[in-house]
């Protein structure tokens, strides 16, 4: 009887799926990630930390000296640096998560053949994906921690709620990472990978990161508000000054839903991504 069951293709049901795709040992993938960070990759960790800091210094302080103060959440006047700092944190959470779940996964899969080695062991696609997403979030956590310390040190936060920007950065990262890995499963060449950057750059430029979206016609505003980064930026900005509205829950809910859908999507694509 059991031999007959074994012959069928991966069965229906969560349990059958897990038996086919996981040994429950994603922890080993995480261990490997930490070992690599300990060995050599502090440089990469640091480079990701400096990017938003440089933006903050050049645009926030430099350009900000020309701009003066702008209207923050709830209408209070805040410095331009304080206006863009939370947006830069949201953007950096997005960029880090996307880099780790797309380029990094793509490279390890197609060129370094790292995952082929892992998948020759009891590790399944689920373990590899979960371990790698965890590592992406850990890096995101380090960036968020560092950047929040920098902007708090510069006096750009005015509320203890700013501490909540750290876990929220992780939620934003999870939303993007879970979706990014699924998208990567459709790509086979570096040229296709470039499309990711083409999508991300305008999202960074126009999602009320550097100026309010009220400058756009209403139709464009609606389009931007449908995109994830705008919600991340608005949420971070509200946290940085401790000003909350009903929209806070909407922004938060957006990323919860995005993460759930992203994890579901990636899960469906895991076998296509890793097993060929």
């Amino acid at each position, binding site marked *: 009887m059991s031999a007959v069951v*074994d012959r069928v293709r991966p*069965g229906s049901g969560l349990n059958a799926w897990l038996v086919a795709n996981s040994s429950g040992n994603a922890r080993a993938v995480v261990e490997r990630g930490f070992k690599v960070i300990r060995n050599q990759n502090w440089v990469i960790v640091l480079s990701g930390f400096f990017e938003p800091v440089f933006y903050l210094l050049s645009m926030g302080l430099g350009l900000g000296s020309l701009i003066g103060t702008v209207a923050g959440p709830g209408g209070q006047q805040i410095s331009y640096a304080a206006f863009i700092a939370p947006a830069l944190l949201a953007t950096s959470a997005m960029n880090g998560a996307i880099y780790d779940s797309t380029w990094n996964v793509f490279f390890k899969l197609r060129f370094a053949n790292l995952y082929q080695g892992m998948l*020759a*062991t009891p590790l399944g696609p689920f373990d590899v994906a979960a371990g790698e997403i965890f590592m992406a979030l850990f890096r995101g956590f380090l960036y968020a921690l560092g950047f929040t310390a920098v902007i708090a040190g510069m006096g750009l936060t005015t509320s203890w709620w700013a501490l909540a920007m750290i876990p929220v950065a992780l939620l934003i990262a999870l939303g993007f990472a879970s979706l990014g890995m699924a998208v990567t499963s459709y790509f086979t060449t570096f040229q296709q990978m470039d499309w990711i950057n083409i999508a991300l750059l305008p999202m960074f430029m126009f999602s009320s990161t550097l100026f309010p979206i009220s400058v756009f016609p209403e139709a464009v505003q609606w389009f931007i508000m449908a995109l994830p980064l705008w919600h991340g930026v608005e949420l971070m900005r509200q946290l940085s000054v401790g000003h909350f509205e009903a929209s806070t829950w909407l922004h938060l809910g957006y990323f919860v839903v995005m993460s759930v859908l992203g994890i579901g999507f990636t899960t469906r694509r895991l076998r296509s991504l890793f097993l060929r």
Partner: protein
Amino acid sequence: MPVIEASELTKTYGELHAVDAISFEVTPGESFGLLGPNGAGKSTTMRMIGGTTLRTSGTLLVNGLDPEVRGPEVRANLGVVPQQDNLDVELRARDNLIMYGRYFGLPYSYLRPRADDLLEFAQLTEKSNEKVDNLSGGMKRRLTIARALVNEPRILLLDEPTTGLDPQARHILWDRLFRLKEQGVTLIVTTHFMDEAEQLCDRLIVMDHGRIVAEGSPADLIRRYSTREVLEVRFGSDRNAALVDRLRSFADRIEPLPDRVLLYADDGERTLEAVRKDGLVPLTSLVRRSSLEDVFLRLTGRSLID
């Protein structure tokens, strides 16, 4: 019960039939070879056994389990040496072994001494803290093979294990594989080296274009598809082809290759004598025993290494 049972196993990539409805069984403790030129479907077959390539159709059982349905359990008993080394270049040599063992869920207390043993086995003890990129091709190969043994597998899949190894290292590896075989480990080896197949395999299948063209023990295949001896003669590359018709009468079968002509006969020396008596004087000549290379040439009309 066979450790591997494949039936009508097929893998297609678009139009290409990489593996085309092959069926075979491997019994426990057997040393089983997949022989064929590049692109014959050997590596694809190996990956399907590990469940890392999904098959298009057919059935496959490894230790009675379908690797697509129970991949992690199947691979817990496998050791895999892929055709291309896929060592973790971000880890040092010894850490490659330890971390790989962690993927199997093995504890550090077991893995630390195990890694040292395996480094010794691979003659890499002095390189244990070296970065993978700084190892030579042969060293990487040995490390990859050592890594495949970290979980003491019951089935070892070796995809062209000695490619890139020097002759001495090959013989050492063959010796180690014999010892594993003595311990009851099932070996599955793909190769396009005939001497390797003859050394290592109890039984083998010859593959070409995704199909099995012959199956048997090396001696058995040679008996069936070739003569006892082969006479190789060279007349210079421009004359070889021209003399083929004249040479045909001297042998059971004749195989003109670009650089030489092979004459299949039971007594090579006598054939050479007859050729010489006829007034043909080859630049060089060689009489040798028939090998699997000759079997392959007979079955597919092609050399194994293009």
